[in-house]
């Protein structure tokens, strides 16, 4: 890992323990009187690091224009994406940076409460965040109160509307939001929700300004991205400027083979052929290839693996993670998983390939949230990148790696019942 490659900003000065408040202030500067203006936020051009890449300043401006008072700043550290580890790494390194960002946004919006959401299975992270909150409490600062909330760590629990709904009613169910932008609420108070990494960057922008932030990265995606890289049996977290060539990121993560392909963004992301390693890791560079950065996930597929089989595993997982609220997702995703299973084995697969395509077209855009759309994106890009493999499998000639070691990490899924019929 070379110094020129990684630009450590939010992961600066990594210690063997989460930085406590005095260590944090020694590294980054004092936290009392830390603040940010909407102009600086806008000029920084910062976009969300949770996957949607929405300009944060626009979100804040929208809330500032509302009559309804914004009372809550929610930090989304759920990290429901199995291939992602960056939010946990961030909170294990510089938790106070995340809290700084949340604090300055809360003060900007006159919100009195910051809620950090960590999946209840991530016990270590919960402890780390609570410790950081306690250290701040001892200092008795002005500003918002901090608390940790822990929903169950299902995949869709990290979806914006599902998280807010859980905070309101204890169910991790994505909500139907036909009019956007729309204001989310907890009780009667408006909510600003952002990813933990976004907050950490804002904690730094408050200290160093917009120009400093824009000094690395690209014009439309300034700053750094904390990537979660998998593919050599380990999970490596690496902070790099947006636009860094994928090849460099892979070698920085210790992956020195030529991958067959890469899965970018997460399990609802996009496949990229392994020959495009010199493309920069940012949305503008990846768009011509039909890919995107998503939640900063890079999963490398070694040459001795089967893209069809990996897709089958991932789609099966994603189908079981559906909230089962909408028919096209609840029934469509398992159907696609079945097609992929047939294609993996090569048995009874003659119609599966065309069904995958037609089903993708039918299901797209018909769910309340973007969960099924992510899966469709994954499948479509796979059909493109692994076109040859798919046609061999469909013809009943699966490759030799279809049953070999698995690359994609599939977490244990408990209590997945059969879809009840009413």
């Amino acid at each position: 890992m070379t110094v020129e490659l990684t630009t450590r900003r939010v992961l600066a000065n990594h210690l063997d323990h989460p930085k406590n408040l005095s260590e944090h202030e020694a590294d980054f500067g004092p936290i009392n009187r830390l603040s940010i203006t909407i102009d600086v936020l806008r000029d920084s051009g910062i976009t969300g690091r949770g996957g949607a890449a929405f300009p944060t300043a626009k979100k804040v401006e929208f809330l500032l224009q509302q009559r309804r008072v914004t009372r809550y700043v929610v930090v989304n550290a759920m990290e429901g994406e199995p291939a992602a580890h960056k939010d946990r790494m961030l909170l294990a390194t510089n938790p106070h940076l995340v809290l700084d960002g949340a604090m300055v946004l809360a003060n900007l919006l006159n919100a009195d409460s910051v809620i950090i959401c960590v999946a209840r299975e991530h016990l270590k992270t919960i402890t780390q965040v609570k410790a950081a909150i306690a250290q701040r409490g001892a200092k008795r600062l002005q500003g918002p109160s901090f608390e940790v909330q822990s929903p169950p760590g299902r995949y869709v629990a990290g979806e914006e509307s599902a998280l807010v709904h859980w905070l309101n009613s204890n169910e991790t169910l994505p909500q139907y939001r036909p009019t956007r932008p729309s204001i989310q609420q907890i009780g009667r108070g408006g909510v600003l929700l952002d990813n933990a990494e976004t907050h950490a960057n804002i904690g730094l922008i408050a200290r160093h300004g917009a120009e400093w932030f824009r000094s690395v990265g690209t014009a439309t995606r300034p700053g750094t991205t904390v990537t979660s890289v998998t593919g050599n049996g380990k999970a490596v977290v690496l902070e790099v400027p947006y636009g860094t060539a994928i090849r460099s990121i892979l070698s920085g993560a210790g992956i020195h083979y030529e991958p067959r392909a890469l899965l970018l963004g997460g399990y609802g992301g996009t496949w990229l052929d392994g020959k495009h390693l010199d493309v920069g890791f940012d949305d503008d560079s990846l768009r011509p290839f039909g890919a995107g950065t998503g939640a900063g996930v890079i999963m490398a597929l070694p040459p001795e693996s089967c893209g069809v089989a990996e897709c089958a595993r991932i789609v099966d997982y994603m189908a079981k993670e559906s909230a089962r609220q909408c028919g096209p997702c609840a029934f469509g995703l398992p159907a696609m998983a079945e097609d992929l299973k047939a294609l993996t084995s090569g048995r009874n697969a003659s119609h599966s390939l065309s069904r995958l395509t037609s089903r993708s077209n039918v299901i797209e855009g018909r769910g309340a949230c973007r969960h099924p759309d992510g899966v469709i994106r994954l499948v479509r890009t796979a059909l493109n990148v692994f076109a040859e493999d798919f046609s061999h499998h469909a013809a009943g000639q699966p490759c030799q790696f279809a049953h070999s070691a698995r690359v994609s990490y599939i977490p244990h899924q408990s209590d997945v019942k059969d879809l009840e019929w009413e």
Partner: protein
Amino acid sequence: MGLTSPYLWYTSRISGVISLVMLTLVIVLGILISTRVGGRRVGRFEITEMHRSISLIAMIFVAIHVVTTVIDTYVNIHWISAVVPMTSSYRRLPVAIGTVALDLMLAVWLSSQLKERIDPRAWRALHFSSYASFVAAAIHSYLVGTDERSLWGLIVLGSCVAVVLLATVWRVVGRPERAVGRTALSPLEQSKGR
């Protein structure tokens, strides 16, 4: 002064029996809606329309039953006993159970008239009390028929209970293919040539 006449009493009894039969029909139609029956020869929306119309007819017969029973001075039942249980001096328990049935029916019917205005989940939960209403109506029917129990009365009651029981079991156990997601009109069904 008393208003009584055998015809009032007959009307009360007969409208009661018809109400029970109508309630049975309404429940069966409701079960057909939720199991997504139809779509080929009979439209599903037609079944829903029938469910709505027959529920109105049922409420009318229940109204006739209640009114004729209350205004008949041969039995001493005050208006209040029609909606408040255990306030009748005549056959307190049997009438009370009938009152419970009426209260539930009113709740279900009124909430359905205001369906667009109330929370869908609340409406749905309330709607299930139609089963409780049927049980109450059946027990009421059995208990009040004591002094005039006739074979045909028992046959009608028994048949209604049997039909509702069978339909409910069928709904719970499920049709051979899962009801949700399978429709007679869907291309998958059509391609199977059924």
